[in-house]
């Protein structure tokens, strides 16, 4: 799995790892990420880091809804230096969404991942990641989730 370093269009390999409440607090204190991540301590929070660099460039909070056979993306953020035209790395959100899809397969949920989008961003998630729209949620499952895993995991 990789992100792209925009300045040189070079692949940088990344890893995604679960973090505990202590690390969530530490990352929150750095203010490198928008939103209050301390609110996510009750959920599964993961960090995306470029290999051989400890500092995360992406964070993801997942709610495991076992009774509903689903993973819900509660919150996802690229670090502040990775937003907009001047961002250092591309593909951060895609890697984290593909990771969520893979976790949803590993848990036996058929790759079912959902999120509640901001209305004005909905079309972009659908276009970029192939999400399907329902009244309240965007969802990906089955073949589309496999496609995302292939796209983001195959180097």
């Amino acid at each position, binding site marked *: 799995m990789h992100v792209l370093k925009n300045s040189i269009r070079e692949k940088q390999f990344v890893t995604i790892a679960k973090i505990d409440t202590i690390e969530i607090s530490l990352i929150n204190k750095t203010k490198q990420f928008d939103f209050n991540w301390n609110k996510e301590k009750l959920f599964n929070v993961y960090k995306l880091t470029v290999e051989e660099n400890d500092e995360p460039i992406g964070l993801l909070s997942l709610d495991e809804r076992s009774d*509903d*056979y689903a993973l819900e993306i509660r919150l996802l953020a690229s670090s502040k230096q990775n937003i907009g035209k001047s961002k250092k790395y591309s593909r951060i959100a895609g890697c984290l969404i593909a990771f969520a899809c*893979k976790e949803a397969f590993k848990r036996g949920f058929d790759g079912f991942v959902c999120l509640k989008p901001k209305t004005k961003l909905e079309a972009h998630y659908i276009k970029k990641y192939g999400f399907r729209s329902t009244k*309240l949620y965007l969802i990906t499952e089955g073949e589309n989730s496999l496609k995302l895993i292939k796209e983001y995991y195959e180097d």
Partner: protein
Amino acid sequence: MKIKKNRKEIQETTFSKFTEEELADAFVFPSDKVLTAKEKKEDSDFWTARRKQFENRTPIQKMYSRLLQLKFQLEDYVNSDQYKEALNFGYFLNEYVSRQDKKDKQFAEEVDVTPAVLSQYINNHRKPKDEFVIRLELHSNGMIPAISWFKVIQKDKEHEIMTNQELREEESKHVKNRLEFAY
């Protein structure tokens, strides 16, 4: 995790500076909106439908799901640094067979080995040859590649070579004039 000190004061992001596409490319925003009664009903209906859809899958869909689950569990395991004795080649092979609701005898026929040999693989009493690993890839139509199977075998071997004291004692008699450097 180290925290850099003396960092310049970091500002909150002004989201309005970015296009919608740039925001979607960087975030999934938190959903802190309070739901109306109508939306709560829609939410509840959505999850009811999801549970129903999942529980009404056909046997084939369930099998496909179980095999994909195995594929990703296997891949994650072989690509991780951890070693778990229980997660050996025989365990994953047994899972591959049982998740298809097949008897060992039927599966042995499908990959052209005797039931006795398959049993030895499953119980880790025999190391599979490359040919067998390739057959497994072909049998799954590429879903679980030979390299993933090979990496499990490799992982088992690495553990064995690191921990086999008996073999060290046995081989000791064949080694003479040992180096005496401190290490």
